[in-house]
């Protein structure tokens, strides 16, 4: 399942702007962008890919239990996230590392989850409303919808002031579209006309199962079926990702109800470092998508616009610096004290937590000298 006649594309794989009936309504969103802004798109994608490679290396070297690569999905993630405003709430799945970083989450916080030190632990309020990763497939779509219902009840969208209006964007994948929760989320979103964008990254593989096993119809038509205006985009085109998301978030913020975007992209690497894609997919498919790489095409575009070699050199250095920084800091992370196990299971005081915390402390103390 690849590009269709309906796929919105603004930047061709060759790195040139596409002028078509479909693209004309979105190109104005891109025309407004300065060269500096466009270079920022590229910076996020390039630095992210370097981070992703370093994290996978750290896993191979035994410093992480697992890594979830995002290689290939940079344009879908960066473009959509740059279209969001700070007041928007973003609900990720678990592969949106670049968006976490863009919303102010320390990359070490992401890595510490995969090192077995936390289950997340950042406070969305302190990180531009970027919510925690959700590992159960599709569950976060309902949380996002509930949050958006609350925004509607509180009058936080459709105020008439576009600077104040807020919306929700939820990220999910092609595999999750088979989960009941995703359908229920669309039912609730349509029913309550939530200020919300469903952003589906169709990376074509749910571990080893191809998207053709999940759906006989292009996935954006699922959104239409629930009465949600839906659009399919070339998810490896960062300009389409940005422009279409901006148009749809603007509509959601303005109180026009939910929207659905299917971004066609490709998981170039494994599902996780525990996976072996060579067992289930052809190199020819990989080659097809390598020719549609999001970073290569955007680099071509920026060079044609006059970006200097020094800009690209600086990005490479920035990526290497980030990689060195996380490598150094990950090794310095302490294991949390055992007593913290009991600290946050409940918000209010709880007698069982108190008793078990004390019992563990007593047990550990019994090994100390003199006992």
């Amino acid at each position, binding site marked *: 399942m690849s590009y269709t006649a309906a796929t919105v594309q603004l930047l061709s794989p060759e790195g040139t702007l596409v002028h078509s009936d479909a693209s004309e309504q979105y190109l104005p969103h891109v025309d407004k962008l300065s060269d500096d802004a466009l270079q920022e798109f590229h910076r996020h994608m390039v630095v992210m890919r370097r981070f992703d490679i370093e994290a996978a290396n750290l896993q191979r070297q035994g410093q992480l239990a697992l890594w979830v690569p995002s290689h290939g999905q940079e344009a879908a993630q960066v473009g959509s996230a740059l279209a969001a405003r700070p007041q928007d709430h973003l609900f990720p799945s678990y592969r949106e590392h670049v968006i976490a970083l863009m919303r102010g989450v320390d990359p070490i916080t992401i890595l510490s989850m995969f090192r077995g030190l936390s289950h997340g*632990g950042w406070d969305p309020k302190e990180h531009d409303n970027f919510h925690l990763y959700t590992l159960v497939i599709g*569950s976060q779509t309902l949380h996002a919808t509930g949050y958006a219902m609350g925004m509607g009840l509180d009058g936080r969208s459709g105020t008439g002031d576009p600077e104040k209006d807020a919306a929700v964007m939820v990220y999910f994948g092609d595999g999750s579209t088979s989960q009941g929760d995703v359908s229920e989320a669309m039912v609730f979103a349509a029913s309550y006309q939530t200020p919300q964008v469903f952003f589906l990254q169709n990376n074509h593989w749910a571990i080893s199962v191809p998207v053709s096993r999940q759906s006989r119809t292009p996935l954006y038509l699922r959104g239409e079926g629930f009465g949600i205006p839906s659009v399919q985009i070339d998810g490896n085109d960062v300009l389409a990702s940005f422009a279409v998301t901006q148009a749809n978030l603007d509509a959601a913020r303005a109180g026009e109800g939910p929207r659905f975007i299917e971004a066609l992209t490709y998981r170039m690497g494994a599902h996780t470092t525990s996976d072996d894609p060579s067992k289930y997919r052809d190199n020819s498919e990989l080659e097809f998508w390598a020719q549609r790489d999001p970073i290569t095409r955007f680099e071509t575009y920026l060079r044609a616009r006059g970006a200097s070699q020094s800009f690209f050199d600086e990005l490479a250095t920035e990526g290497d610096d980030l990689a060195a920084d996380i490598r150094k800091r990950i090794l310095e992370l302490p294991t949390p004290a055992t007593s913290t196990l009991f600290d946050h299971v*409940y918000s209010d005081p709880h007698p069982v937590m108190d008793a078990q915390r004390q019992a563990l402390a007593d047990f550990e103390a019994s090994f100390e000298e003199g006992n």
Partner: protein
Amino acid sequence: MTETMTMAKALNEGLRAAMGANDRVLLMGEDIGPLGGVFRVTEGLQSEFGDKRVLDTPLAESGIVGTAIGLAMGGFRPVCEIQFDGFIFPGFDQITSQLAKLTARHEGTLQMPVVIRVPYGGHIGAVEHHQESPEAYFAHTPGLRLLSPATPHDAYWLIQEAIASNDPVMFFEPKSRYWQKGEVDRDSSGIATHASRVVREGTEVTLVGHGAIVSTLLQAAELAAEEGTSVEVVDLRSLSPIDYDPIVASAQKTGRVVVVQEAPGNVSVGSEVAATVTERAFYSLEAPVLRVSGYDLPFPPAKLESVYLPSVDRILDAVDRALAY
């Protein structure tokens, strides 16, 4: 001032009081608006507070719980109604994998003040999936609190305590007692959220139970008294955490404990009570802690439910066995 009312009315009044006290409290569920819920517990609340405070939802339990989580993230205090006990399982994943774990996942920066009301238990002659007692699944789940009132007074206060809790609360309502009347004292200072209570004092055997079975225990105690046996009855009220001190004190006094519940006995709340009483009151016990439960079966067709559910006779039989040690 005390007033006589049914448990359904007491819950309705408790919800009304909580909604009046805090405008972030909202109700959501199937058929809870104009209809007032299939048991009429929310009757009149939508017309009083409006359809932005009382939400009739699509028919999807996972959707109800999952969106309640998102609403709680936005500062609301949602109270969800699950229509019947056996319909909670489509929402089980959102309750156990998300609702129960989100505060820990956020390392304390996120509170989850969500209440899930579940009418539960048998005695109403209904079809399959409408008479179950699924509380053990949730009592087993860290991060949840479980309450179950046995009287209108407790229902009135405990629902308000549940809504005031900053943690998720599963609120199990004994639907067969919805229409039983009792005194409600609205001027009292409420009750401690997780306190069990001795509802009848006695000296020879302790009966422990929760929800609908508490009134059955009181009937059994009355009949035992006629035969000269003094029976104490303890109502758990809270199934997680369980307030063991009054139960252990009672066990130390009587030396004999029978735990009674409608749910299947295998790996149940009653199993946990029996084990803990044995640990904490071992030297006071004159007999093993006995259990009277639903049999380990799917809830049977209604014409056989009186055989399945712990009856006064089965409870008294266990009392006799405890006394025979």
